[in-house]
């Protein structure tokens, strides 16, 4: 078992799901309450990573992060090293890749909060943001946990995006799934099997937490929000 790859993966997944909690809540908030007529386009964009092959997403992220893109150049100027094939680049790619797995459960749980409670809160003098903080968020706990755990689990097992954006640098971008791939390539089946089993068990435990918290079906939380 490659512990270096293991801890790198856990660190990546933890950072990504934490970031997605911070980014996903405002996006889900906007998706739930906005009455913009083109909102469905944004919904489609957010859901893209579910259907897109990870290599496609990875390719675009790589192009966006590379030194030829403005983002990549700016990062290079700021930090002195390029963004592609680094841990930071991996975080960015993974955040995009796991976005729907956080945003959709968030949005679904926000819109499940009874509109009457929002009206009651407003008539009690609470602002829209205050109502969101004091009423919507606490009542969406299950959806927040689901989104957090799913994006964690999803990042844990990603392969295509990591390969495209991160490459295979030990200790920097070599995650468990890449490690398994390497071992299989090297004909090292028993090591691959060990690591794969570890990943399987972790994923199972993580999903058990989701079900335990929610007692709802996976599809109803991850599926398109109403």
């Amino acid at each position, binding site marked *: 078992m490659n512990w270096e790859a293991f801890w790198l993966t856990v660190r990546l997944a933890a950072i990504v799901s934490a970031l997605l909690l911070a980014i996903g809540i405002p996006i889900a908030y906007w998706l739930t309450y906005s009455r913009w007529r083109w909102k469905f386009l944004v919904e489609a964009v957010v859901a893209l990573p579910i259907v897109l092959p990870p290599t496609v997403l990875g390719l675009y992220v790589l192009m966006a992060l590379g030194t030829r893109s403005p983002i990549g150049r700016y990062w290079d100027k700021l930090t002195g090293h390029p963004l592609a094939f680094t841990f930071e680049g991996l975080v960015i790619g993974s955040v995009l890749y796991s976005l729907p797995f956080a945003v959709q459960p968030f949005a679904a749980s926000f819109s499940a909060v009874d509109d*009457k409670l929002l*009206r009651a809160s*407003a*008539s*009690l*003098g609470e602002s829209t943001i205050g109502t969101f903080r004091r009423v919507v968020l606490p009542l969406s706990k299950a959806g927040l946990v689901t989104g957090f755990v799913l994006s964690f689990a999803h990042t844990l097992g990603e392969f295509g995006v990591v390969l495209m954006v991160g490459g295979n640098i030990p200790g920097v971008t070599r995650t468990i799934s890449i490690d398994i791939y390497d071992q299989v390539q090297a004909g090292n089946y028993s090591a691959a099997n060990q690591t794969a089993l570890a990943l399987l068990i972790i994923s199972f435990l993580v999903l058990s937490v989701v079900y335990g918290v929610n007692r709802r079906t996976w599809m109803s939380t991850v599926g398109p929000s109403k």
Partner: protein
Amino acid sequence: MTSERVIGDPQRNRASNQEPVLEVSARKRLGTFNLDVNFHAGAGFTILFGASGAGKTTVLDSIAGLTRPDGGKITVGGRALFDSNSKLDMPAWKRRIGYVLQDLALFPHLTATENVAFGLRELSAASRQQRSEAMLRAFRIEHLRDRRPAQISGGERQRVALARTLVTEPRALLLDEPLAALDRPTKALILDDLRQWNDTHRVPILYVTHSHEEVFALGEQVIVIAEGQIVAQGLPHEVMSVPRLETVAQLLGFENILPATVTSLHEERGTLTCRVGAGPVELETPMVRAEVGSGLCVGIRAGDLLLATEPPRGLSARNIIPGLVRKIERRDVIIAVLVDCSGTDFEVHLTLAAREALQLEPGKNVFVVVKTHSCHLMTAI
């Protein structure tokens, strides 16, 4: 401040200078539904009465800022909340209008105390605690302090919802059938608590209901709304039984609609006598605000009429009218009997068994029995 209050006294609904008045003028189009209301409500109860779908809730939502009228102006105590002319539309949460919804909308994740303290976030923790405790005591629900809404019974939930709204000291209070689900004694107790609160907090209270009974029980100023328009305004006995209440739609259910002329008023027993049609038939009906000689319409359901083959005695019904059976018709399981009472026809509905028992045939002499309260008065049509 007038704190001496007598139920049914119209004076107390007239706002004195210090008491805030709620002035509402709102227009809103929702599909084919057209809301257009214009009224003001002084401190104390004002009842908004009307069938469901009449626009009562839209009126409350407009005042609370939860829906935006197409036009109009809404002020409380002279301060504008909405004014289409100056493009003012204060957000709901800045209006300080208390609004208790029919299904209460208690926050399920908060205890009763936390629910009551919800609107007090600007106070310090200590005074927030103190205020909500006092409110829980005033509404006799201090024992529910740490319980969540799911663990609280119906009537007590109503109290929590009221306490939660009242503790914020709103400038006006909107109650959307908050007591509809309660039994009468519980309802009366809560209304008493509300009245007591209103004695010290002289703000306008708009109370929405579609129950006649509740309107009379409250005995306050009533605004009657039908199809988005105010159709009557006054004290319950002035507006509730007054002819105009029955609209064309309501007329449809009445088989007997007869023109009538008021012949005498009996204020002491709350009735009046009117001559029906051109003939000599007179009916004693409930009192309405009408003058002797004025023309009205009496509506009586055929199923509310009784037939007797002999002059009935020892009967509470005030109207016993002799007549002649003209026609008998069977409609499904109903027997429709047309009775000619000296030129005025009544349609009476009987059961098959009743027809058997009375051996009714055309030409038979009968007596039509009409209960006073089966007579519904309407404007002449």
